[in-house]
């Protein structure tokens, strides 16, 4: 059995304490939430932190609540399984529900957290792609300050986020305005448990039969999850007829910068982006209209 290299281990009781330790150890420290990514990476010896800071004993982080402003808040220790089983999310934040529901392993969903999934900063994150179109923001805390940023600004590259040493993402905030939109999430995988070849989320709002606003997010086709801004602009104000949707999907595919790897070729990813975006717009539209 390949074992983990030893490390200093901390179980702080507050975010402040956790932040202090993380600041002290800087890049030599890793945050432990659910552990489904961290522990395997350490077992493969891909990462060997000198210090592991567990958030598991900090109270109040395992929550899904709707606050007075109808903003949905998902805490840093909330499991993917809790997200999947939340009636509010299934009803009002459909793209997020669909993204999490399609993650196959019950064990991974039970242990893994939504926030942890974001902090890995993989472009294949189904959760991130869904949250992009739901207008999610992240609350980031450190010892002395707190900031809230749009999720699009969180990722700066493959496995890279804007987090400074000592900063911790404490929750995801999803505005209630996103509930007016119809949303959908689709992905292409070889088998249910695999990482996405391409994933797509769409949210559209419709007034007088025309698209008022559209958001299209794409995963696994660039170093980070991206918004397909040209496609979004194109959709705005138009009637969402089949031809328009097809054209928007073409635009979205043009905005991708996929690579070829073991899961797919770049060319295939571009092609399949078109198909998934077309289907996701249609699905989101059906939901917005009904």
């Amino acid at each position, binding site marked *: *059995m*390949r*074992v*983990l*290299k*030893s*490390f*200093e*281990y901390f*179980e702080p009781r507050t975010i402040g304490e956790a932040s202090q330790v993380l600041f002290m150890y800087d890049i030599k420290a890793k945050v*432990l939430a659910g*552990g*489904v990514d961290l*522990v*395997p990476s*350490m*077992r*493969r010896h891909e990462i060997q932190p000198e210090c*592991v800071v*567990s958030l*598991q004993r900090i109270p109040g982080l395992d929550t899904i609540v709707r606050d007075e402003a109808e903003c949905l808040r998902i805490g840093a220790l909330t499991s993917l*399984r809790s997200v999947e089983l939340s009636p509010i999310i299934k009803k009002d934040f459909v793209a997020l529900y669909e993204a999490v529901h399609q993650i*196959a*392993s*019950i*064990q*991974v969903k*039970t*242990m893994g957290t939504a926030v942890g999934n974001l902090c890995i900063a993989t472009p294949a994150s189904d959760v991130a792609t869904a949250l992009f179109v739901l207008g999610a923001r992240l609350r980031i805390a450190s010892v002395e300050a707190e900031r809230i940023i749009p999720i699009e600004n969180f990722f700066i590259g493959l496995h890279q986020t804007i987090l400074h040493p000592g900063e911790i993402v404490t929750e995801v905030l999803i505005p209630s305005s996103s509930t007016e939109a119809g949303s959908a999430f689709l992905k292409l995988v070889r088998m*249910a*448990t695999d990482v996405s070849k391409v994933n797509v989320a769409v949210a559209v709002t419709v007034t007088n039969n025309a698209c008022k606003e559209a958001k299209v997010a794409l995963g696994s086709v660039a170093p980070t999850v991206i918004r397909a801004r040209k496609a979004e602009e194109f959709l705005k104000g138009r009637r969402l007829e089949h031809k328009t949707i097809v054209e928007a999907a073409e635009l979205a595919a043009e905005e991708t910068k996929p690579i070829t790897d073991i899961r797919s070729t770049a060319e295939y990813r571009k092609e399949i982006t078109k198909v998934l975006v077309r289907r996701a717009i249609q699905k989101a539209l059906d939901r917005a209209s009904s």
Partner: protein
Amino acid sequence: MRQQIIKFTVNGRQYELTIEPHMTLVEVLRDQLGLTGTKFSCGVGECGACTVLMDGKPTLSCCILAMSARDKNILTIEGLAERNLLHPIQKAFIDCGAIQCGFCTPGMILSTKALLDSNPNPTREEVKRGLAGNLCRCTGYVKIIDAVLAAAETIREGGKSYGQSE
């Protein structure tokens, strides 16, 4: 120095152990407690062979630090039968021929228990979803799914555990 003392309950028995923070739960269960029913296979959360129930939830013991199990209640395959009375899920796996090499079986059975505890009457599709995190390289899954459905039926009819295995 780095050693820590943790307390937890495994199969109804309280333990107080000295461990190091880098130890995963599966190592402690197998190497310190001798509970080798929990299997170590892929080590990275792909196969589900190491699944145990922690406070009733299906948990990959290879992907969790033993420190995270502090004060928790853990059920491994050894804790399922009541003395020599097999649990209905175990009995169903035997009766349906859902076991070949047996390596995935402890994980399969504990995932099944988690599924049936929350959904006593699953459809075939729900069984597939409930076991999606457990790989079997022998059976092709059909008999495993049959066994889960059979166990569900037995449990629904009030069959708590089985003794009369001939």
